[in-house]
């Protein structure tokens, strides 16, 4: 997917005035937050669970080489093929190769964010394959020719009316405002045909279990299970950070994931895939492939962004982010939006093309508070800002103002003299306009000083008191 992250300010502004989008976002926000809160409140000790999740991931990351080797060996021992993709291009060509060799014409997909990251659909379609998304949300945005706007609810930005229109266009169904159950049934009918005809099924994997070579796949619709049951070939696409050591560890991670993502106690389908079809099985694909993607992850493992690799893609930080809730996911311009995206995107596609992302955050800290694996997202964003500063990527008048301020603040005597002078000369009340500024005053008045600074008034008062003593 081509990034438009460098257009964040324009895209965010446009999003703020997009009425459909605003209606959809307002509708979604409260629901996500309330459901998570209720699930967490029901749990006996969610804090301890979070801490355990953090430790499981930290432990795994600290031994990632070993766990990757064990995982791959276990998959191969059970008849699976393991492919290693250092970057997106490698992953695409591995997938193309698998499809070609299988003589595939139709590919069905479960929801995979890694798939979005490497741009699977475009690559396969270019090679003449038909690619069909089967997660209902992904299917909707595929019809709309849009990228996902949320990592677990890809079509969260679409209203029911918009979905009705899309279905009418693509399925030839009546162009009226129809109820959701009717739409769900229609999608089920259309997609069932696709499932039955597909040659290759591609899914993501939520967790990869090293001890057994098992992929854990969490879904609610059952589309993932159909993708890995009906076609002749099943391919799992996953980042190398998805490892956990044991099945028990996966249980902890799933508990964290579903509560954080949708407020469920467990997803409708939690499927554990271990290797290829056994000889005595009547059902299931003939070939099983596992594609492990690096794409910047090993670099993050070695630098100050390692903690980001704990991310289990629950989407909760998006749901709790005021900026995400105001502009939606598309404004961020690439696959991963919201707080996690603002950390991840610069890591994957570079600092230069993503200058706004780390800055488009108020550092309110709510994301860190709810992240199931305790990723210090605001801190990581601050680190990115420091990297930007170091590399001279932050420019413009605001940067100079800040530097000037920093310079002055390091000279207390001069600082106090100058601020007192400004306070004395300034008019009172609130300004509608300030010299050299439009950022504040285009929409807000600026409360002005009140004749004196505190420091000046305080030392005057102290002097008076001394005189009276």
């Amino acid at each position, binding site marked *: 997917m081509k990034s438009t992250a460098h257009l964040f300010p324009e895209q965010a502004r446009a999003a703020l005035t997009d009425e459909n989008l605003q209606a959809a976002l307002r509708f979604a926000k409260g629901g996500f937050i309330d459901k998570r809160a209720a699930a967490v409140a029901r749990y006996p000790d969610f804090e301890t669970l979070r801490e355990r999740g953090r430790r499981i991931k930290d432990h795994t990351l600290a031994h990632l080489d070993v766990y990757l080797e064990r995982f791959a060996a276990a998959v191969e021992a059970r008849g699976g093929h393991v492919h290693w993709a250092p970057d997106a291009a490698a992953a695409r060509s591995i997938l193309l190769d698998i499809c070609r060799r299988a003589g595939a014409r139709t590919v069905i997909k479960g929801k995979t964010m890694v798939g979005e990251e490497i741009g699977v659909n475009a690559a396969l379609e270019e090679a003449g394959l038909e690619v069909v998304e089967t997660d209902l949300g992904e299917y909707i945005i595929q019809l709309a020719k849009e990228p996902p706007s949320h990592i677990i609810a890809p079509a969260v930005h679409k209203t029911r009316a918009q979905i009705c229109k899309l279905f009418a266009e693509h399925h030839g169904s009546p162009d009226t405002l129809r109820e959701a159950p009717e739409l769900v049934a229609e999608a089920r009918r259309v997609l069932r045909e696709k499932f039955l005809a597909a040659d290759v099924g591609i899914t993501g994997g939520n967790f990869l279990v090293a001890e057994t070579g098992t992929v854990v796949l969490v879904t609610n619709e059952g589309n993932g299970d159909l993708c890995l049951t009906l076609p002749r070939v099943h391919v799992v696409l996953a980042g190398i950070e998805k490892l956990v050591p044991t099945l028990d560890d996966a249980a902890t991670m799933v508990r964290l994931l579903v509560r954080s993502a949708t407020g469920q106690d467990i997803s409708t389908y939690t499927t554990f895939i271990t290797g290829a079809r056994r000889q005595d099985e009547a059902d299931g694909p003939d070939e099983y492939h596992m594609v492990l993607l690096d794409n910047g992850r090993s670099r993050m493992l070695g630098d100050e962004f390692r903690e980001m690799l704990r991310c289990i893609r629950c989407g909760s930080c998006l749901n709790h982010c005021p900026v995400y809730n105001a502009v939606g996911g598309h404004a961020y311009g690439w696959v991963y939006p919201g707080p996690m995206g603002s950390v991840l995107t610069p890591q994957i596609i570079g600092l230069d093309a993503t200058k706004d992302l780390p800055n488009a955050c108020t*550092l309110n800290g*709510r994301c860190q*508070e709810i992240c199931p694996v305790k990723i210090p997202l605001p801190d990581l964003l601050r680190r990115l800002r420091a990297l930007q500063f170091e590399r001279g990527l932050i420019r413009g008048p*605001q940067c100079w103002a*800040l530097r000037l301020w920093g310079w002055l603040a390091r000279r*207390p005597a001069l600082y106090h003299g100058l601020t007192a002078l400004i306070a004395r000369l300034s008019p009172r*009340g609130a300004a509608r306009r300030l010299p050299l500024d439009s950022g504040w005053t285009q929409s*807000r008045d600026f409360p002005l000083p009140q004749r004196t600074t*505190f420091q000046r008034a305080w030392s005057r008062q102290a002097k008076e008191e001394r005189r009276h003593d």
Partner: protein
Amino acid sequence: MNANAARPRIGLFVTCLVDLLRPGVGFAAVKLLESAGCIVEVPGGQTCCGQPAYNSGDLSAARALAKQTIQAMESYDYVVLPSGSCAGTLRDYPRLLAVEPVWRQRAQELAERTFELTSFLVDVLGWDAVDAEFPATVTYHDSCAGLRQLGIKQQPRRLLAKVAGLDLRELRETEDCCGFGGTFCVKYPELSTRLADDKIADIEQTGARAVLGGDLGCLLHIAGRLHRRGSPVKAYHVAEVLAGMADQGIGEDKP
């Protein structure tokens, strides 16, 4: 350190925003601390805690300001600030100075004695003998840094409960950010304003005549937006109300 002495010596870090734009908050803080039995001093070596630099990635400026602040404030029993986010920055100094062991140690010692005003009064001193009157319906905005980094939520409410005539009506979304965010508010003014408008809608539905808060940054932003919209709702720092020194709302010209 002399924490057990009858009258703790407080270094008041007044914060650059209060110093320049709202000196009354500083005097209110002094009054409250003195009523609670503290000796308050305001060292002249202080300016800004360095938060704008810290949050903008200018770490060398942030470190220099951190050291300056440590030097100015470390001789007191406690450092108290009328701001959750600046107090949070002082608490972050050890991390900021992590690579300089001697400074890190000094930062650590300072951080442990650093408190936001309402939390200092309630959590450290156990004081709530507020003597003030504010006969009005008000609402309270919890600033994010105070709320999440320092766990400030009940402290201002406990103190406000003692203010005669004051009727506190809570916002629906007490956890929502107001959209100030330091430099964020000038880098992304439309976004910031949208969040302010959401906050203001929430403030207005409570029927409050005034919004109170513990961080002048958020308050300037909310007050500035209220003012531009011509809203009658006024904004005050919580210390002003607690000290009985809340007359002119933030950004107001007349009482």
